[in-house]
């Protein structure tokens, strides 16, 4: 860690912190205006109410232009007059209040932490899934991801590679860090997600599904060999990771490729990074439409003669489900899905170990990187 000391750098820091302040100010302003409306209603003897975009299946539509799922125009009214909604109304009020404090004081929280914090305010949640759901409500009402309110998921994925960042969280403002200093990688938490991306020598981002392979890639110095930033998504990529991927793509102009297991779930992990999930249809900052899935494809199974295991019933059902998804109607997505269904077999990333532990990094990866250029 080194301190930025030159004058030029200091100006830049100021600019950056100004930008972060701006963002914080906007969030606070928005929360305040929601609060003021409810305050006025109560003060005028009116039952406060607000409208919330409907997240029901019928209101989730695929937007071809945005290349992601978005919410339609249906909205539901949530009113404190309705005794059935009174509880969730109050929960959401509290969450806004709590998010306001977090944002104001620049403190971070997690989904689980939110659930437990509620008890201190005599707010009842049946279980964490109820409080998680209210958090999604707040996202839907404000059209902002929870990370903007300093609420992060529990699970952490990690990043490794030559990338300089500069923290914006309180106490670390202006401090910078190079993300290739620690071979275990850096966990993508609140401080990293909110950090400024300063510069990088990398030319590509490789998102990989599995922690084991991530470690192997670091050991094999894939970052250096292929001038890349390696990200472990830990299965389905958490939102903070997707946000980071998006920023690396947009702010650092880096192409993103995704490497997953050779099965239908892997294919969908890549798809979510590319165009989001139906669950997050109310948010629009989480997709990398130009991300490319490079493997393991179903066709790779045959091409590389990978050892396989048979697909389970749930794998096959998942294939049929995805065949109905508008994003799987053409190109590689449709083609690979069809081959999976034909083979009824799947292969793990580790399958390449059959041909040597470094086979995947020595042979497979270079071929795929080459191929990605033409995708």
């Amino acid at each position: 860690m080194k301190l930025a000391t030159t004058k030029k750098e200091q100006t830049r820091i100021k600019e950056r912190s100004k930008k972060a302040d701006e963002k914080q100010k906007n969030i606070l302003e928005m929360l305040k205006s929601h609060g003021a409306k409810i305050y006025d209603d109560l003060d005028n003897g009116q039952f406060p109410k607000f409208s919330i975009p409907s997240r029901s299946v019928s209101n989730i539509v695929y937007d071809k232009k945005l290349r992601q799922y978005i919410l339609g125009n249906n909205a539901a009214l949530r009113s404190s007059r309705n005794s059935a909604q009174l509880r969730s109304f109050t929960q959401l009020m509290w969450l806004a209040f709590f998010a306001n404090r977090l944002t104001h004081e620049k403190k971070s929280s997690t989904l689980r932490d939110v659930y437990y914090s509620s008890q201190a305010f005599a707010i009842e949640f049946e279980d964490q899934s109820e409080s998680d759901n209210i958090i999604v409500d707040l996202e839907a009402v404000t059209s902002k991801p929870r990370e903007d309110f300093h609420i992060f998921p529990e699970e952490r994925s990690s990043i490794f590679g030559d990338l300089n960042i500069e923290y914006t969280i309180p106490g670390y403002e202006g401090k910078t860090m190079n993300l290739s200093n620690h071979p275990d990688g850096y966990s993508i938490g609140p401080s990293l997600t909110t950090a400024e991306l300063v510069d990088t020598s990398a030319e590509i981002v490789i998102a990989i599904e599995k922690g084991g392979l991530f470690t192997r890639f670091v050991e094999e110095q894939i970052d250096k060999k292929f001038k890349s930033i390696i990200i472990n998504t830990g299965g389905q990529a958490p939102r903070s990771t997707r946000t980071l991927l998006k920023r690396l793509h947009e702010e650092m102009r880096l192409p993103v490729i995704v490497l997953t297991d050779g099965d239908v779930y892997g294919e969908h992990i890549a798809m979510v990074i590319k165009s989001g999930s139906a669950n997050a249809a109310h948010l629009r900052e989480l997709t990398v439409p130009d991300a490319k899935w490079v493997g393991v494809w179903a066709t790779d199974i045959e091409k590389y003669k990978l050892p396989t295991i048979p697909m389970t019933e749930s794998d096959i059902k998942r294939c049929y489900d995805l065949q109905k998804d508008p994003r799987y109607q053409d190109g590689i997505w449709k083609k690979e899905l069809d081959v999976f269904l034909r083979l009824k077999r799947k292969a793990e990333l580790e399958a390449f170990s059959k041909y040597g532990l470094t086979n995947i990094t020595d042979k497979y990866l270079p071929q795929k990187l080459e191929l990605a250029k033409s995708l």
Partner: protein
Amino acid sequence: MSSIKEKFNQISPSEFFYSNRDLAGFSNPTRSLYTAVREFVENALDACDQKGILPDVHLTIKAVEPEKPDPKPYILTVKDNGPGIDAEHIPLAFGTVLYGSKFGLKQARGMFGLGATMAILYGQITTNKPVIVKSSSDGAIQNQFEILLDIQKNKPVIVKHTTKEVSKKGLSVSICLEGDYSKAGNKIRDYVYETSLITPYASITFDDPKGQKFSHPRFVKEIPPPPTIIRPHPHGIDVERIRRMIVESQFEIPTIDDAMIEKVRKDLGLSAKNLSFTAIMDKAKKKWKTLSRQVRVVIALMSFLKMDFEKLNKIKIEDIDMPNKKLFYWDFGDSQSKSIDMDSESQYYKQLTNTVQGEPLTTFLTKRFQRIGPTTAVKFAEFAKFKPERRMGTLSNQELVQLSDSLQKFEDFMAPDSSCLAPLGEEPLEKGIKKFFNPDFTAVIQRPASAYSGFPFIIEMGIAYGGDIKSGGPHVYRYANRIPLLYDEGSDVVLKVVNDTDWGRYKVKGEPPFIIVSHICSTRIPYKTAGKENVADRQEIERELRLGLQFLSRKLAAYMSKRGQADMAKKRANLYAKYLPQIAEFCTELAGKKKEPNYKKLLEENTIESKKVEEENEIGNN
């Protein structure tokens, strides 16, 4: 054959009941004590009901030796303020089996006063103590009897008889019997309690062996109208009953002895005079309407014999052959049998025919049954393939069966007369339920009279919810002819109907606090067993119970939905009171304000709204 018959005759009714006392509910000390209480209390209430007296009944049970463990002898005393029993009837009434005053066809708790005698019999068997009866039927003199039963002879043995002056009418019966109060106590207390619910015009007290006093004062001052005694309905009749009715309707040819001749003279006003035959006939014609049947028969015979009193004294009627119109008699003077022809055109011939052969079918039907007029009687005769003028006395056994069958099958008889029934009435029933359970909701119904097998019946039902009623309902209180039925509820028709009901449909859920009172009034309750504890599922009764319960359930459902609304409003108000302050707190900080918004107005409005619903609810309930 004849020796067997003699053997049967030697078993007196007392002996029969002694050996079959299980049937009457005297199977063990527990059940016996309970049954004895029932029999005496019911007799006391019946006696008062019949005379329109508001009953005061005092029940006392005392252990002879309190320290002894159960079962042990108890003295059971039931005292009432009823009409009492005349001294001359007391020994027979309490000292023989099958002696009673309740033989008429009307609704009463007991049928023949049989149970009380059974209790006395049981007491005597187990403790060898006499029954003590104290009775005053005039409110001045009280007769006190100590009576034992001679079981073999079915005769009373008066041990002691004294009299004393009193100021009140009434009867007190006291027996000593072996019982088990520690086991029977609950049922007896329930019995007294439930009896007072269905007899709200009675005041009932109970002093139990442990020194506890249970008092159930009357809370209805008017006694419901007493039932009237009526003739039977043709649908409710059998061959044996018809045979008995024919015997009742027939009249034996009187023995013409000195006493009879004296009576005829006296009735004609001819005690002193000796008139000629024609003069006697003239006199009889004039006085005909005032004459008794006996006398009329004698006159009719005289008209054919053409004899005056003196000659009449010297003969004896041997036979009257109506079909051949011949009259046979023994002449003491000539010492020989003689016969004369009877003129079938004579009005006296008809008189004799009635006497000897019984009434014509149509007369029999119209006079001795309810709901049959002359037109119906003729229509029935055609249906049953009898001549309308057919004499009842001439019916063969086979014809009697045919008649009985036809009476059951003929459908044009009107429904039984229900004036012989004494339902409690909706108002007293509702009052009783309200007093006993202090419920939030009560509904009662008295169904119109209906009939099964020729026996009229009326169903009365009540339903109540909430208040002091325990949860875990429906609790069913069963009554038949104002008697609570406490045992054997499992197989009872009322329970069947209640259990068949899907209470969820009536918005009654969980373990609801509610009760159902059902009262079946009938001249004959179709009990399943002799113990009189459960009512059989006669289709007609089941149907009426169902209709009654449906009506009440609908009312309950209406109440429940209002109650539900009020509960909801209350819950809602509570929700607002809980959540609005929190919303206010959070939005104050969120909006960056110091002072909380004035949300109190909203809470007030809510309270007002929920109050409104509650008020409506109360109005609906009243």
